[in-house]
């Protein structure tokens, strides 16, 4: 099986640019026949990952960039999103579903990504996220 070629996009820490990148990846997923539930999962997870990169990683500094490497094929959507921040430890993010945290307005992005994607992992520094969505209906 030939190795996949990743597409690479670099954006500034600006929401409009992130939206454009998201739309491109979602369009590619539709072209490869992903169903609406997978598209929903992808759109939500991309929004969360890019929002985290902009807000927490790059502290909304428009001079800091985000690099998105991705490929989409019939079976798998594979995305790396790297920010220029100092990183974080995802294990230390509090569980937002506990009684004491339920009313906190923050901290649900990673939970949602883990619920909707088949893989969510970070590099050791915590400034690169790798998310994978498998096609739930590849034979459709």
């Amino acid at each position, binding site marked *: 099986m030939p190795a996949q070629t990743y597409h690479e996009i670099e954006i500034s820490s600006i929401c409009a640019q992130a939206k454009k990148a998201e739309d491109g990846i979602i369009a590619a997923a539709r072209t490869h026949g992903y169903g609406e*539930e997978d598209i929903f999962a992808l759109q939500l997870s991309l929004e969360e990952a890019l929002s985290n990169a902009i807000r927490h990683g790059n502290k909304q500094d428009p001079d800091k960039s985000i690099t998105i490497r991705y490929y989409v094929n019939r079976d798998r959507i594979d995305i790396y999103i790297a920010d220029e921040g100092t990183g974080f430890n995802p294990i230390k993010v509090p569980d*937002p579903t506990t009684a004491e945290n339920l*009313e906190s307005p923050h901290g649900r992005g990673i939970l*949602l990504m883990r619920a909707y994607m088949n893989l969510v992992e970070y590099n050791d520094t915590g400034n690169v996220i790798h998310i994978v969505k498998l096609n739930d209906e590849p034979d459709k």
Partner: protein
Amino acid sequence: MTMEPGPKIEVSHEGAVTVVELLDEEILEEGTINTIADSLFAVVADDPKIKLLLSFERVRHLSSSALGTLIRLNKRVEENNGILKICHLRKSLLAIFKITKLNRLFDIYDDKAAALSNFTD
């Protein structure tokens, strides 16, 4: 360059209940969320002991930041002894509330009629 219309809410009243229809299909981006938040908090400021029903009938996507805004709004309503309920969440969005366990924090109803009949004096 085409100017996109800004995000909107539509406010109406059913008896003592203020019904707010969220008009944007996607409540994902920070700008959209901030504008909707400003509008919702203004509605609550006008009527502190509000009985507020948020309808999500037109909403197809929302982000964790949007959930954060709802939580802050709920807190403000409760601080003023008001009541907030939610209706018309489509199945995909109800799933988000269940995953985040926010279905325990919010009163969620299938439709307006069910929600309206559960506002007590």
